[in-house]
């Protein structure tokens, strides 16, 4: 009886692998399983090797794992490429009508199922071969195809009921064929006792929903993997949500346009990846000096230069902490999973408005594109507005947009509002916004802006720790590594773990408290220079031991376990 199992689908780009994987993920979620979906693909529209892997379990499964239980091979290459992830008991499903098994020693049990033939004989088209493979997989797990049929219905009903019916017939045929011919290969798995409703979505979708919930009014971006799907999602929902979504001519325009909209009072957000963020750097400082709220989602991928567009990295942390010239306050958040992406993106819009500064959401290819199964997000969201002045304020005060205050945050008016004009200024300025080079005013303004960081300290939520209080070894990591580390912890009872999703202002006390109780601290991250390690060293003067990966691939739990035991 297996508690959890791992399915991989492999083929060439353009074969609908990601869609198949997601369909299977949703079908299994509807049966009550926990799932985690991870996809890999090269930066090509056609060709190249694509995979989707789905880790499934009755109890929580956090991340992808290496060893494959069922491999759906949509081409011959897939079989050869993943031999070292197979065991003698792995099942490999392939279509013998499509290609022959490669020669030589092969690991696992090979089940020839004519996906294409079954699909066409059931009245479908060759494209529906994927559905046959999914139905076959369910049959081999001794699971019903009902939920797969529901997912198909939801996906295609807007196209036509005829397409729904054909696909469903294909699924029935695929399941039946597998039962009739291969039932002795059935995997013995634990099945969930009851079913809880869960959503399956990517980190980018979660971040987009968080932004919508947080009152986003203006989204502007220029396409760049792995942030692009935020633009796609929000553009597709613009009509429903009433959010203005614009694809601008370049990232420089993007950031400046968003700041203009924010100056006009709109809650504004931009999304990009490293190269695009480089182009935005000067604009981010404009948000800083002019104290105009801005949320920047930066989904990291390996660089420098174009780097590896469709792979993952956490290599922009130091860049983001130091982005732009001179000094100004900013907030840097790094959600660990889809749930945190939702919560923190929502929060970022509020923080940006409350403290009138740039707020970064650091994602990466891994979290942006993985499929997470989460409890449904709350449906209703209340949003408060911050530091906008009212008419009554103006009758009682002389309006100074950059008034020196105790908190560093000043009252804000919006264009169109009576008797409250000011210059929103990229130059250093006085309290009214007028340009100045006066040394005293300059210093006061620098201090005023910097002061906001002190206030923000109180906003930092408790950072999550996992594992025993007292441990032989302590892990610290940030952002998207969270689920991989949690998966690894299942086999590391002596290790505890601090997950940081709030990086700036740095949660000094919380990190110090954790380290104080640790015997040995390892800092795990996806870059080559231990960027979080550097931050901890700078802020606390403490050395940590780096555990790094920077080949474009995420950590696997097995690797962490191997390194730490």
């Amino acid at each position, binding site marked *: 009886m297996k508690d959890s199992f791992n399915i991989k689908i492999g083929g060439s780009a353009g074969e609908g692998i990601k869609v198949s994987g997601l369909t299977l993920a949703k079908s299994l979620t509807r049966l009550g399983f926990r799932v985690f979906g991870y996809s890999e693909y090269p930066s090509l529209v056609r060709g190249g090797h694509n995979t989707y892997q789905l880790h499934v379990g009755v109890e929580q499964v956090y991340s992808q794992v290496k060893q494959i239980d069922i491999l759906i091979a949509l081409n011959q290459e897939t079989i050869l490429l993943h031999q070292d992830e197979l065991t003698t008991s792995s099942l490999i499903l392939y279509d013998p009508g499509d290609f022959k098994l490669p020669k030589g020693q092969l690991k696992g049990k090979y089940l020839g199922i004519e996906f294409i033939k079954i699909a066409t004989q059931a009245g479908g088209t060759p494209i529906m071969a994927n559905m046959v493979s999914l139905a076959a997989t369910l049959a081999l797990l001794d699971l019903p195809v009902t939920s797969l049929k529901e997912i198909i219905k939801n996906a295609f009903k807007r196209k036509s009921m005829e397409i729904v019916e054909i696909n469903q017939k294909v699924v029935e045929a695929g399941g039946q064929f597998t039962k009739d011919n291969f039932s002795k290969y059935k995997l013995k798995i634990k099945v969930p006792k009851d079913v809880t409703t869960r959503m399956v979505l990517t980190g980018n979708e979660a971040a987009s929903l968080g932004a919508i919930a947080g009152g986003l009014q203006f989204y502007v971006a220029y396409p760049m993997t792995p942030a692009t799907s935020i633009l796609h999602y929000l553009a597709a929902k613009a009509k429903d949500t009433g959010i*203005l979504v614009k694809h601008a001519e370049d990232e420089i325009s993007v950031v400046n346009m968003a700041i203009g909209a924010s100056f006009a009072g709109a809650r504004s957000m931009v999304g990009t990846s490293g190269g695009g963020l480089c182009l935005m750097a000067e604009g981010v400082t404009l948000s800083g000096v002019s104290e105009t709220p801005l949320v920047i989602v930066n989904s990291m991928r390996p660089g420098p230069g174009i780097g590896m567009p469709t792979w993952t990295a956490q290599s922009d942390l130091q860049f983001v902490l130091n982005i732009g010239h001179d000094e100004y306050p900013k907030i840097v958040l790094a959600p660990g999973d889809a749930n945190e992406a939702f919560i923190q993106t929502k929060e970022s819009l509020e923080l940006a408005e409350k403290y009138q500064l740039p707020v970064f959401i650091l994602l990466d290819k891994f979290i942006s594109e993985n499929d997470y199964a989460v409890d449904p997000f709350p449906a209703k969201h*209340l949003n408060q507005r911050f530091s906008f002045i009212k008419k009554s304020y103006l009758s009682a005060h002389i309006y100074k947009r950059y008034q020196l205050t105790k908190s560093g945050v000043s009252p804000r008016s919006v264009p169109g509002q009576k008797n409250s004009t000011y210059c929103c200024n990229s130059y250093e300025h006085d309290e009214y916004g007028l340009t100045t080079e006066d040394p005293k005013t300059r210093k006061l303004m620098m201090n005023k802006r910097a002061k906001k960081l002190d206030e923000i300290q109180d906003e930092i939520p408790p950072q999550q720790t996992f594992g025993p209080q007292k441990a032989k070894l302590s892990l610290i990591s940030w952002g998207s590594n969270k689920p991989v580390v949690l998966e690894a912890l299942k086999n590391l009872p002596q290790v505890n773990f601090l997950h940081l999703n709030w990086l700036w202002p740095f949660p000094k006390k919380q990190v110090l408290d954790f380290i104080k109780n640790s015997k040995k601290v390892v800092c795990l991250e996806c870059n080559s220079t231990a960027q979080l390690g550097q931050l901890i060293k700078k802020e606390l003067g403490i050395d940590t031991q780096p555990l790094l990966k920077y080949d474009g691939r995420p950590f696997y739990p097995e690797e962490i376990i191997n390194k730490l035991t």
Partner: protein
Amino acid sequence: MKKYNYQTSIAPTWCPGCGNFGVLASLKNALQQLNFKPYEVVIVTDVGCAGNMADFISTFTFHALHGRALPPAVGVKLANHKLPVIAVIGDGACYGEGLQHFINLMRGNHDITVLVHDNYLYSLTTGQYSPTTPKGTITKSTPEGSIEEPLNPLALALANNTTFAARGYALDISGLTSLIVKAVGHQGFSFVDILQPCVTFNKNQTVDNWYKDKIYPLPKTFKDKTKAFKEALRQDKLATGIFWQEKKPSYHTQVSVLEKRTAVSKKIDEVDISRLLEEFI
């Protein structure tokens, strides 16, 4: 009706005799004629001598980054399309540092007015050559004479689907006032290239040896674009007036989200995302 003077507490810091004074006076006149309250107008200025206007006019102003006045101007317009938005920008910023914005936002027919103070130089940075500097001009950054052919702003705009293109002259305040009134009144992207003497750094394009003989008023706006284009290509004379104007829907009128309200007035105090969640289950 109360007339506003749009005066701030700051006296302009331009050199005596600078053409920018003429543009500022014309812009204030135009705002007066249009009867705009200062708080109902947004002026986005670039960085440069021209851009320093941000402190000298009492509307809502936004002093942008260098070359970047147009994106925030469009950002303001898309956020609150009820506001008239005017960008004030130098030739270096508009045709050099930020040319991509000029070309692309023009194609979108965003409803903003772009006033380019064209003095054939980068003046704030003490007079290097700009995209409109005639070939062969000796400046601090081109001691052997500039090598590039100059950019032709009006011809470029006409070829690039601007719906309003005009040329003004900074020292012709009544003519420029009327051009600005029409440009701001135009629905869509309105572009005015303003010939602006820089008395300190530009010793070639001066009133006496350049503008006096070259400038003449266009008798009327062209109905035929090829004729407007031909006039724009002229080198011997520089016509002032509206070269081209056509009616086309501006960007924000084609965005369904903005049909009934502005982007800033979208209610956000209570957001319900239940319908959006369905597709993920």
